[in-house]
């Protein structure tokens, strides 16, 4: 009788410890995992992965609908970190980009505000019919402002 009680109690104890360790070590839920993946992404919000932002891409990775090598601004480093976090194999990037910032040619800018509305991180300032300018320290280099410009006055300058 006593042996049985002790045996069962110790099994319960070991299982309990095992579960608590697992709870700490393994990601608690999908929502949590999305956050952790999002934290590894470069937050350029450039949509080059085909998703409207870094967080949606993170959710897609969790849902297993997206590969981990779709983020060009993150580079090989991000792929490596994602592979490490998710226990997947490292795969080569689909394409690579150089880190750069947008520059507005102030002589050509007509003040249409199209680029301002396109910027995902509010890094372009300027009012209607007045010259616009990029806040260089906040620009993520996502290139989303380049296409909307009607006079093609925005160019990407690599960061040296």
């Amino acid at each position, binding site marked *: 009788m006593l042996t049985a009680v002790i045996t069962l109690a110790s099994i319960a104890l070991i299982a309990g410890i095992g579960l608590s360790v697992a709870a700490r070590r393994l990601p608690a839920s999908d929502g949590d995992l999305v956050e952790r993946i*999002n934290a590894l992404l*470069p*937050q350029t919000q450039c949509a080059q992965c085909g998703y409207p932002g*870094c967080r949606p891409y993170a959710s897609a990775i969790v849902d297993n609908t997206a590969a981990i090598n779709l983020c060009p601004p993150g580079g090989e480093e991000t792929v490596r970190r994602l592979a490490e976090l998710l226990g997947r194999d490292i795969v080569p990037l689909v394409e690579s980009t150089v880190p750069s910032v947008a520059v507005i040619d102030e002589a050509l800018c007509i003040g249409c505000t199209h680029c301002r509305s396109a910027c*995902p*991180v*509010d890094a372009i300032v300027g009012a209607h019919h007045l010259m616009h300018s990029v806040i260089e320290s*906040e620009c993520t280099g996502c290139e989303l402002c380049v296409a909307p410009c009607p006079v093609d006055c925005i160019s990407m300058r690599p960061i040296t």
Partner: protein
Amino acid sequence: MSAPTYDLGTLHGGLRLPGNKEQSTRNPIFEMPIPAQLVLPITQHVGDPAQPLVGIGERVLKGQLIARPDETLGAPIHASSSGTVVAIEPWPASRRFGDTAPCIVIDCDGKDEAIVPADKPADFTTLAPDDLMHRILDGGIVGLGGAVFPTAQKLMQARTCKIDHLLLNGVECEPYISCDDMLMRENAADVVSGAQILMHALQVNVCFIAVESDKPNALRALGEVLGAAKDSRIVLKQVPTIYPSGGEDQLVQLVTNREVPSGGLPTDVGCLVQNVGTAAAIHDWIIGNTPLISRVTTVTGDGVAKPVNVRARIGTTIGDIIETTGGYTDRAEMLIIGGPMTGKSVSTDRVPLVKATNCILVLSHTPSPGPEMPCIRCGDCAAVCPVQLLPQQLFWYACADDEVKLREFGLMDCIECGCCDLVCPSHIPLTADFRVAKSRIRELADEKARAARARLRFEARSQRLEREKDEREAELAMQKESAKAAGPSAIAEILKRKQKKSEDEK
């Protein structure tokens, strides 16, 4: 009378290196004549570059303010002699990053005409500590031990902490360098006076002047001055000759037996460390009204004909100094700014003497320690590390680029003293590897901070767009409501009016 004392804390590791200081201490400090041209970099301190206040063609006087930093961290720069500004342009400079720096170039007229001081210096004891600090800030004084942190800002930071000890660093543990030694021998009174000014600014009552045991003449000179001054608050401490006992944290440990926490500052344990040269510069400015426009520097090594200490104007080019003191020998091969352990080799002697330049070292041959071999994990490096790190483990993780482990093993506490390099039997350039790993970690941290900021901005924008959409919808709904309340006849009326208006326009 303050006698040298020996009650000291302990320092882990360190090395006894051949001093090579006697060559440059045989003769007194040589007064360098005013050169034909002065080159003053606008960044001679930790912090943001100072903004030039003078234009090309403008005549400047000795001691005139020629560049001032913005409100942030930095120190002003004064003209070292009178003359005309001929250029503000990039010039070769000895810097950690990059080979050129923007400089203000002055053609000297040789008259050395000084600017009339704006106000007569008051007795510093009547000044409030904060006013005294602002005055020190105006003098362009920075830490002359080599770190060139603006002194006034260091003092202001210290005032926010509880400080009970002021430490004057006269240890100068790196081989070849002897400028502080000679300064203490010849200007001991200035150093002590500077200590008194610093103590008043900090409102502390204990000051230790730490001097290495291989400088008996400096110890004697300071002892005599202290004996005559009868200031019992200042105590002279003799510390053993071990490299790198002159590191800020190491000196605090050695003199007060308090350990500066990882990632912390000496102010966390109630200490503030200043170089003896800085103290003398503060004396020159507060009492003598001369801003920091000259400094003592050691010209030494077997590549110069006559090793000596010189007092030269800031902005004098290294080539001018070496030429005036006797020139190069035939064997001169390598020019190093700073000491042999922590200095930086430069490719041209056109670089100017800056506030940080404590030594100009010219060596005959590049010491080749032999080819790099694999680490055999002997642990010699761990035994000599003054910060008690494990360089062999750090090397391992640096090769693997493992940022987390590198942080865990305290890479950021590495003071880059170079002890581990010297003892490594496999000749691994550990310090250089650590320097690279450190900058990589800093880069990653910057990237992370940038990503976090971009994320916040993106989320704020998404929220704003959402809110704007809601507001628009709410307004539309309200308009619909009010139209409904007015009834169909009112709507018909409005439509009729609108139609009439458009017909009128046609």
